């Protein structure tokens, strides 16, 4: 991917907070920072991976981008146009360009609505096509998604299909308007591994055939490596590292990315596999100031004096490779300490 490509989606300093409900007097309310001043740019035509563990805010990012929720601060721009606060017609127009595939194929279809009507719904609400024309378009979309003969799938209810088939239907539904950006929120986390690969190939096909940009949200570095051109690693609402997928995964600079790589299942004996060992076994007490590095509590490399007091800035580690860590340095990563599988606190 050349860096000369234009930016299709930009997140600028996006912050999203959630309030937990307190008791009747409003006591015990807690604020959860789902996204903390996230900025990133997705280029047209690429598959961009957003990688993080559960609760890291990656799904929130997806929901903000498709306009299901509003950020508390910051702006989201599609082709240079701010989409925060779009309503009514403008929002509907926006949704012709941005569609989403949801994580759980068992929950993302109305059980009372046939596949035909579910997939054809965007055509109807967007006023693109109706009647026979709509049905033909749905059948074509189902075929594109690898469901054939499409006629035999169209007139079924969601519960009559398998998870993998449903996720294909979900992709058909998302792509029927030919959006320029597809947000895929862990589309394979509920599927068997064999099905995952098929879904990945389908997403690659979507990009290749329609030239759509894909924002691929995942917890798995392995699938990000298979699918993505660039990845961003996110931890508890903070961006940690961003760069070309191959580069980030082969040569991770941030201790959190390194810990993620350590956590990826591998074959072989424990001692033989190089590990970074950057993850603390137990969490450290939080930084009092709340201004330090987001990964401070679990980072094996962190120094209290610096990491708990000063948020790290993004620094360039290589060609398009940025990392937010005080102690990251350009150069090859050192993943040679085998042996111990965990580092003590």
């Amino acid at each position, binding site marked *: 991917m050349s860096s000369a490509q234009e930016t299709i989606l930009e997140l600028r300093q996006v912050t999203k907070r959630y309030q937990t409900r307190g008791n009747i007097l409003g006591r015990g309310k807690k604020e959860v920072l789902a996204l903390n001043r996230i900025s990133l740019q997705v280029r047209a035509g690429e598959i961009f991976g957003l990688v993080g563990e559960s609760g890291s805010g990656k799904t929130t990012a997806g*929901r903000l981008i*498709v*306009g*299901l929720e509003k950020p508390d601060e910051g702006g989201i721009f599609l082709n240079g146009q701010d989409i925060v606060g779009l309503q009514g017609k403008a929002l*509907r127009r926006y*949704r*012709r360009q941005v*569609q*989403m595939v*949801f*994580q*759980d194929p068992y*929950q*993302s*279809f*109305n*059980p*009372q*609505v*046939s596949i*035909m009507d579910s997939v054809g*719904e*965007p055509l109807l*609400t*967007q006023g693109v096509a109706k009647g*026979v024309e709509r*049905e*033909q378009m749905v059948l074509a979309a189902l075929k594109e998604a690898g469901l054939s003969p499409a*006629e035999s799938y*169209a*007139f*079924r*209810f969601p519960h009559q299909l398998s998870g993998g088939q449903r996720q294909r239907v*979900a992709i058909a*539904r*998302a792509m029927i308007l030919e959006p320029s950006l597809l947000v895929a929120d862990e589309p394979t986390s509920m599927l068997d591994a064999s099905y995952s690969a098929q879904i990945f190939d389908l997403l690659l096909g979507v990009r290749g055939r329609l030239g759509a940009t894909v924002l691929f949200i995942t917890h798995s570095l392995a699938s990000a490596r298979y699918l993505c051109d660039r990845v961003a690693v996110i931890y508890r609402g903070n961006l940690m590292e961003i760069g070309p997928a191959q580069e980030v995964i082969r040569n991770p600079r941030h201790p959190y990315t390194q810990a993620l790589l350590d956590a990826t299942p591998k074959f072989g004996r424990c001692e033989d596999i190089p590990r970074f060992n950057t993850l603390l076994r137990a969490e450290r007490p939080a930084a009092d100031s709340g201004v330090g590095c987001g990964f401070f509590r679990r980072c094996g490399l962190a120094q209290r004096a610096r990491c708990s007091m000063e948020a790290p800035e993004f620094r360039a580690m290589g060609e398009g490779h940025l990392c937010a860590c005080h102690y990251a340095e350009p150069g090859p990563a050192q993943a040679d300490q085998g042996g111990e599988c965990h580092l003590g606190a």
Partner: protein
Amino acid sequence: MNQQAAMDLRQARRSLWRERLAEDWRVFRRNPLGRIGLTLLIMFGLMAVCSYIPPMINPMYNPMTGVDPHIMASTGPSARHWLGTDFMGRDIFAQLLAGARVAFMVGVSAAFMAVVLGTALGMTAGYMGGLTDTLLMRAADMIMVMPTLLVVLMLAALFGQLNIWTIVLMIALFRWPGVSRVVRAQTLSLKQRPFIDAARVAGASHPRIIFRHIMPNVLPLAFLYMTFRVTSAIVIEAALAFLGFGDPGTVSWGMMLQWVWKTGHMFQAMYWLLPPGLCISLITLSFYMLGRAMDEVLDPRLRDETSAG
């Protein structure tokens, strides 16, 4: 050619629904409760339909006004009066048939109104949330804690004799909160489901989400509640009539029981006391059994594991 393809699609769509209904019917039929309930209901339905026949045969079989000129007091079953006559020589069998008609009328219409009202208000409260939700649900709570029978009795005492439709309306007005609570809860949980998000991303408007995505998922539940509401409506009407606050112009089973009691035949004329009593019990039981069987159709978790396949 294109025409042909469109026809095929329409046919496929239709067969999809047929299949679904057939599947539901299979589950329903497997349930013995459902079979018994349905059989009983068909029987009562036949009774209601047949209630028009006796007055046509002979005016003395008119349940309200027909009096056998040869009979001055209550008599037991005979060939002329299959279940006997009441104190003034009216045919009990004809009254029983007419009572079935009234029971269906009262039960189904009161339940239908209660369910329509409850579903509309419950969905509104659940979907809108906030102040609307609070106001509607507090109103529902207030109505729910009022003892229906007592309030209706008091109103009847205030306004004199009540018309049967007034009674139906009052039962409906006092019986919607239960439905609306359930519908609201269901709406709240549906609202959080990802397919609603999917519909929003697809560009669906609020009315479309409510009517296309939430309502079809709520309606089966509402219909289930309707069967239980029918039961309670029939019982309330019977109780009112028995206590002497029914519509004096209609022959309902509760009314028959009141006549038995008022004329001092309570334990002297079993042929008069038992039929309406049994009918009230059986019709409420059959609606209840129907509801239970429908419950199983609607909720796959209740289905018998061994026969699921």
